[in-house]
């Protein structure tokens, strides 16, 4: 077994700070990473179920070696999109509110034009 090589973890260059308190930047990073790990676990359960359904013993080796085909990948893509709708609820809520406010800033004449143009 060759020597284990550790790769560089941080990209050189100053990381932008997005919030007034740097602790919020870190907390968001951890939250998103956790959201990712939940999705990984969910895929693992899905793999176990699929192996069991196919009559394959869901051993660690069988689960680790599982390669989802394109149909399974598409199902998982769809699940993750719904999952992200749920996890990012507060963002989507704000987006909906902003959408409403942005529409209200539009002059009424512009709405007439849009409707007449078929939009």
């Amino acid at each position, binding site marked *: 077994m*060759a020597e284990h*090589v550790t790769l560089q973890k941080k*990209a050189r*260059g100053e990381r932008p700070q997005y919030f007034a308190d740097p602790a919020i930047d870190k907390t968001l990073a951890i939250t998103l990473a956790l959201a*990712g790990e939940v999705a990984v676990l969910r895929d693992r359960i899905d793999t176990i179920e699929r192996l069991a359904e196919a009559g394959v013993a869901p051993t660690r080796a069988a689960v680790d070696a*599982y390669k989802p085909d394109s149909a399974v990948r598409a199902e998982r893509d769809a699940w993750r999109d719904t999952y992200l709708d749920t996890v990012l609820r507060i963002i989507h809520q704000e*987006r909906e509110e902003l*959408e409403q406010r942005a529409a209200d800033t539009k002059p009424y004449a512009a709405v007439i034009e849009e409707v007449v143009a078929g939009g």
Partner: protein
Amino acid sequence: MTATQDLTTQFRHGVLPQTTSDEFSRQEFVKSLKFHLASKVSLGNHDAYEARAKPAYTKATGAEPQTYAEIRKAMSEDPYFAFWSAMQRNSQEMMWKSVQIPVERQLPDLIAAAGKGAAAEGTLRLNPDLEIPKYHRGVDIHCMPGGYHTEFTADDVANGAVYDTAVYIYAMGRMGPLNSDIGDTTIAWIKENHPDFKPRRILDMGCTVGHSTLSYCDAFPDAEVYGIDVGAPVLRYAHARAQSMGKPVHFSQQNAESTDFEDGFFDLIVSHILVHETSNAAMRRIMKECNRLLTPGGLVVHAETPPYRDLPAYDAFMLDWDTRNNNEPYWGASHELVATEIAAETGFDPAKAFEAYQPSAFEATERRTKVFQGGDFGGGGAWWLWGVQK
């Protein structure tokens, strides 16, 4: 590639890192997060701009924001934009992490696999004394830890493997199983606009792992294909990848600003998303070098995302996100380049310069947002090509 090739996953060539099911799921999550942000969250920035940032800016300054820089100023304090930016930056960092995990685990195997010869007659020439340009040493471009050139062990291929896997996630698969869309699209433009062009030798500058380079082997089977890059790990990986796929390419470690090829050696010089990773001075030196390397009648074509002047100011602002948030210091300035001006400055005839758009060669209609915006690479469905004929 055969007709049965799965177009919805990355092509398994001889040195693509293996993933356990968990490792693959982690990468798939990043891909989903990126697509979710691009298709469902990013558009809220426009509403935030219309609903509060623009009115606030107009009230404060007495005039509506006109340029993308003014829109950036208007949006700089907007909380929705800040949160989206923070998530976008995280998706980028999570992407690198998700591909580093399997590469770190199997690096000795990857190095061993890369060392094995294969069918094709390609070559690899490295230069350990090559000075890595300042614009690659200053920051790690697009937040890839170590950039293209850092070596973590002897005969290292790590960042070649990391980059190859990450590009597929970054483009969300929309550049095809071989990440070759930029090359394929550039080739389509060349064939449509220069149907009788038969290059004898082709150079791909800043080729990294050869995503675009290999397409030229198929498109111009009678030509010799060369690829150069400053990074040894990406070139070792590129060579192994090309060999495993039976594509003969001559890779060498060189700086495109000054190469060791003879005058007039090439008929066609191309680059794919190289320009924005250089600098204003380097870009001009590269074009002078292209002038020296091209035979009369030869063609240089650079592929990039659109210049800001071609976009509505708001879209340009969104495309410019990478300049300040994704370690792409030359992204913004490179999107102001004018082909005729560069041609005139670098000894070419400006009348023979061109700028063009070419629709993406790879069909991924259902996953394209049709917008050029930060964090949505390959989503626009077209590439901007510029260059000049000698």
